[in-house]
């Protein structure tokens, strides 16, 4: 027993079965194509934009001034230095901001400097120097390296610390070729 009357106007009988045969097939095909075509532009445009980062490249690896020779004591103990550079993050331009860090090491009486990236080749943490144990150690998974960057076995890291090209100018200015490398693989491959 209903409280209100159902609508009195009768719906015209609809065919119970969808159209079959060639016309039916064409209708279905068209319906799917139209619907698909309508949905495609936003979807494709969205994917296109979402994948934009794939065509972004980092700044080309260039030699950046880091410090001068007098700041690197010639005792064979690496010291950490900030790498300062102009940089761009999407829409923001940074003038002379620290963008990362390197370890510089000078042997006794030597005028050449070795540079190591401070990024752990295992998973990308910031490797620290253990002055007491005279080694590098990553605070994340305990990858350990000798002061020249070679691996101390057994280590979770698949390779030695990444060396960076380093130049010492006549006036003592040290420049380092700033690069990032893929982590977690045995080979040292620079990121694009």
């Amino acid at each position: 027993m209903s409280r209100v009357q159902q609508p009195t106007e009768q719906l015209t009988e609809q065919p119970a079965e969808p159209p079959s045969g060639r016309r039916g097939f064409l209708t279905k095909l068209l319906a799917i194509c139209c619907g698909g075509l309508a949905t495609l532009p936003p979807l494709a445009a969205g994917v296109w934009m979402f994948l934009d980062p794939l065509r972004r490249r980092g700044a080309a690896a260039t030699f950046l001034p880091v410090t001068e020779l007098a700041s690197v004591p010639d005792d064979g103990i690496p010291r950490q230095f900030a790498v300062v550079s102009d940089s761009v993050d999407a829409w923001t331009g940074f003038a002379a901001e620290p963008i990362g860090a390197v370890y510089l090491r000078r042997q006794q009486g030597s005028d050449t400097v070795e540079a190591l990236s401070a990024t752990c080749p295992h998973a990308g943490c910031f490797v620290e120097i253990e002055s007491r144990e005279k080694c590098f150690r990553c605070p994340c998974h305990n990858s350990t390296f000798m002061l020249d960057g070679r691996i101390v076995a057994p280590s979770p890291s698949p390779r030695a610390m990444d060396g960076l090209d380093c130049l010492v100018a006549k006036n003592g200015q040290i420049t380092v070729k700033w690069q990032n490398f893929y982590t977690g693989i045995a080979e040292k491959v620079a990121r694009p």
Partner: protein
Amino acid sequence: MSKHIPPVQKYGPQPPVNRPGLLGQLANFLDDRTGYRALVHEALYERVPGGARWRYVWGSTLVFAFMTQVITGLVLWSSYAASAQTAWESVYFIQHEMTGGWLVRGIHHVMAQMMVVLLALHLMQVVIDGAYRAPREVNFWLGLVLMMLVLGMALTGYLLPWDQKGYWATRVATNLAGLVPLLGPSIQQVVVGGPDYGHHTLTRFFALHAGFLPATLVLMLVVHLSLFRKHGLCARQPITRPDAMFWPDQVLKDAVAMLAVMAVVLGVILMPALRAMLEGRPIVPGELGAELGAPADPSQPYAAARPEWYFLFLFQFLKVFEGWGASGEFIGAIVVPGLVMGVMFLMPILGRWQLGHRFNIAFTVAILAGAGLLTAMAMNEDYAALWADRASYADVEKLLEETDGDAAKIAAHFGNDPAKITAFTVRSKKLTKIRHSQSFLDASAQAEADAARSIELAGRPERIPSAGMLELVRNDALSQGPRLFAQHCASCHAHVDPAAPNAASLLAKASAANLHGFGTAAWMRGLLDPKQVAGPAYFGNTAHKEGDMVTFVQHDLTDAATWKPDDIEAVIVAMSEEAGLAAPDAAPAVVEKGRGLIADGDRCGSCHTFRDNGVAAGSAPNITGWASREWLVGIITDPTHEQFYGDSNDRMPSFGKTEEGAAPMLSGRQIEMIADWLRGDWYRPTAHGH
């Protein structure tokens, strides 16, 4: 409505009915047009075979937890700004300045952790009850996908405050994603939003966290719940009690469980407040709930980097593959987690056989126990130094120091006795673990101090500059001073309170003056003390050990006829006044007297230029404005300047002077920050704050 004639009257006599009231009529109106009563009936009057049980509450608590996250998340969203210069800043504002911000963020943060716990419980219950068996396989798979979506939201949410902790943890997580075969590097670049971490890492993680992942989760959850209803509850066998309805028997149990979950969440948030209250400390709402570290800085090491506790087992798992090379990390981060998920997806198939079902239960228990064990191992490695007795390793420490860790020397020490050497090796390994743990604890303490300082700075009346919080931190004397000092000054200078227990050993290692309290009367009193001037805290370890100043202090100043104690004290007060660091109660007359003595050509003025005493530069440092900011900046910039040590400068580099074309060792701002830090001159909040 009075004109409304119920349609029943149209059809002649009817048995008397209770006419519905106004609300009832409205309900009828809605039901006629939507059929909601049937829907509600269907939702509430689900048959629960064997009656309501506590073990069925986990799914409901998860839905509740998710709804909590949606509510708090939307409110957080309304105050959050995803960019590298606004994320930390807006989260700071939510946490420390907005009314109730700490509570909303706290609930969101703690409930996220509860969700992981509830997921584990729900999974256990489903596996043990065999609720994945036909026809519920698809729903079990959906549940696994839901679990991964929740974990994905936890992972992406960790970055959003853009603090050091989230930043470094995310670097590791995205680097691991880069290990996926073939597509890894591309996946990483798309997720990170470019070749480097920045604005687009945040915007993408935020879109994932608050858009893609929860939208997918809602879709999946709708299907998950409707399939659950379609199949009905998978009752615990054997059924011994009569069936009951979902409403109200099971709903009551669910509601009690939700209340318990919420109570735990609030308890975790408010526990520190209760503790503060009991200890009589003031309650600072901003310190409750979720913490906020120092702002993300790619150039600043963060040795306390750890994932959230529920991911610690994965973190620890990577350490298991020591010495496996590249394959170890691949196996640990990709293969094993992939295989475990694979087995879990196969559970409904395996569960068809009784043995398979037992295997599934054993597997789930083993995985959870393994994760628990790895978590405990990670915690133990990090916190071992808290309970280890480091003092009992003093002999190991001493021997390692003496031998420089040289194996041959250690062997010789033990007379090449293999048993003793082995015992020593075992103990030295244990010591190394304690040391590593101590480094982690130190780094955590440093991280906490940095976080507190950032929050203090953000609350300045001048507010955060438009360039963002990082600029403020990078220009803060208290944050940067000690780091710059450690890097550039500490290889010669000590900076230790002479009253500290380890002061003597630290001073002995230094090869230049102790700069702790430089510019204060106390420091000057030590310099003018004949016993100390040639000691390690002053000129003792320098080329000036037998210089004019030492001779003056040890001979002239001890002549009581020319230097009465009051005179020396007046000089001390006047010098600290030059530094601008004199005690507030320094009498002007004493300062005036001291200035006269300093300028006097027969006393200090015989060598030092002071104000207008006419002594030519070059013989000794000009002490006009000694230890003032300007004076310190000058001597750090170039100690070989004639106003300072000139030719008699002992080893100190000219940090601000450069060779032609080369950059100086320290920028002008860095030198200023060292000077300010040495002088104790940095921003301090007033007692009333902002």
